[in-house]
């Protein structure tokens, strides 16, 4: 990850912790629904947390393209940066 996305990565990892009961090490390549214990509806709830944390809108249309933690971090970075 580039330096300016590192803080976003750290905050995203913190938001994902409740869904990581096995305590795996989260990396940008972690598959959100595949590697963590989070179902498709809970992912959408998580996205609302992210939206509130950054004061942004992450439309559902975009979410379908987000698979890994790195994808989510890049989306936040892009949208928060454009604001």
């Amino acid at each position, binding site marked *: 990850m580039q330096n300016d996305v590192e803080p976003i990565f750290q905050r995203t990892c913190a938001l994902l912790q409740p869904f990581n009961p096995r305590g795996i090490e989260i990396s940008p390549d972690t598959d959100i629904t595949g590697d963590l214990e989070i*179902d*498709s*509806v*809970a992912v*959408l*709830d998580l*996205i*609302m947390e992210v*939206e509130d944390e950054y*004061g*942004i*809108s992450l*439309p*559902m*249309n975009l979410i379908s393209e987000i698979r890994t933690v790195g994808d989510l971090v890049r989306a936040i970075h892009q949208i928060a940066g454009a604001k």
Partner: protein
Amino acid sequence: MDLFDKFAALTTQYASIVEAGADPFGVCMDDIRSATEAVVGGQDVILAGTNNYLGLTFDPACIRAAQETLSRAGTGTTGSRIANGTYSAHRLLEQELADFFACTSAMVFPTGYQANLGIISGLAGPEDYILIDAHCHASIYDGCRLSGATVIRFRHNSPADLDQRLSRLGGGDTNKLVIVEGLYSMFGDIAPVDEFAAVKNKHGAYLCVDEAHSVGVYGDTGRGVAEAANASADVDFIVGTFSKSLGSIGGFCVSSHPKFDLLRLASRPYMFTASLSPANVASVRTALQQIRIRPELRRNLWQNAAALHSGLSDLGFSLGAGVSPIIAVQMPSREAAVDFWNRLFRKGVYVNLALPPGTPNSSSLLRCSVLAAHRPDQIEQIRRAFEEVGIETGIIDKSQPARLAQAAQ
């Protein structure tokens, strides 16, 4: 590689459910005897998991109307509404629905699912925003997807959260469509439609309320939760279904928007499917009359709902919401829910098993629905089955149910 490889996790999960007993998602009614009784696998069961709130599926007037129409107009229309599938009865039903809701226009669809698909994808396009309550039904999510609009979820039943998310989108010259449900099908809680209406007015948005579970149940004349909240005038579109209180199949949308009927030429799920069969239309028209002329149906329904709700709550079960015809009994885990469902079933009580991700907040629920047609002894039989299974499984405390009930409140 196999096309079905993507269902590996689903296959494992399903196998573990079926292993625990009967298949909750493959129940077959060998014989349906009334709105409240069926035979399943050779066993008599009480139906406490349907959406037949007013019990009209076996209403003699509705059956007679359907039978007469079947003989007169045949078994099907074999065509779309924009081709050969519009009969005068479809138009009359639309007029009667518009009158029932005091709106100027109505459109009917072959199912409630298609009503949401057709209305949402017809109203909103890629340039528009849709804001949906987080607990909305799958048909609303699918309609949003089909529309191509930008879709934002807001926190369940929170007008303040909707306000915040609308504010984030900024002013600008964009259309915003807000979608909520009246009565939510899983927990049985209702939307504060008047407060949502105030927020949508503040932002110049449109409001669509899906009253699938609330038509015939809420409001002085049975129009739904918006009517009960005195907010009908601020609702731009009401979507609903014929497959719940109206005891048939089909869906509809009513509106007083002057250009509403343009959707007949623009909504793909409306145009590219066959229209409702004449017998269905006839039974729905009669069911609408029954709702008008028999308010006692609603009174019975609410009496039964209150009786089962307090019965289960007094036993110490944790319920999803206050009194409504949908009573969601919360289970501690997926496994506990499957086990409890099987035990109820063996005692001759059928309820709906609802598991994540089909439920909000990853909840595992036994969803009971109460009907106007349930007799008091049936309500008691359902309550007693819950009591017995609750004690067998240790989910309720036999010695102190009342104390637990108080703690849960």
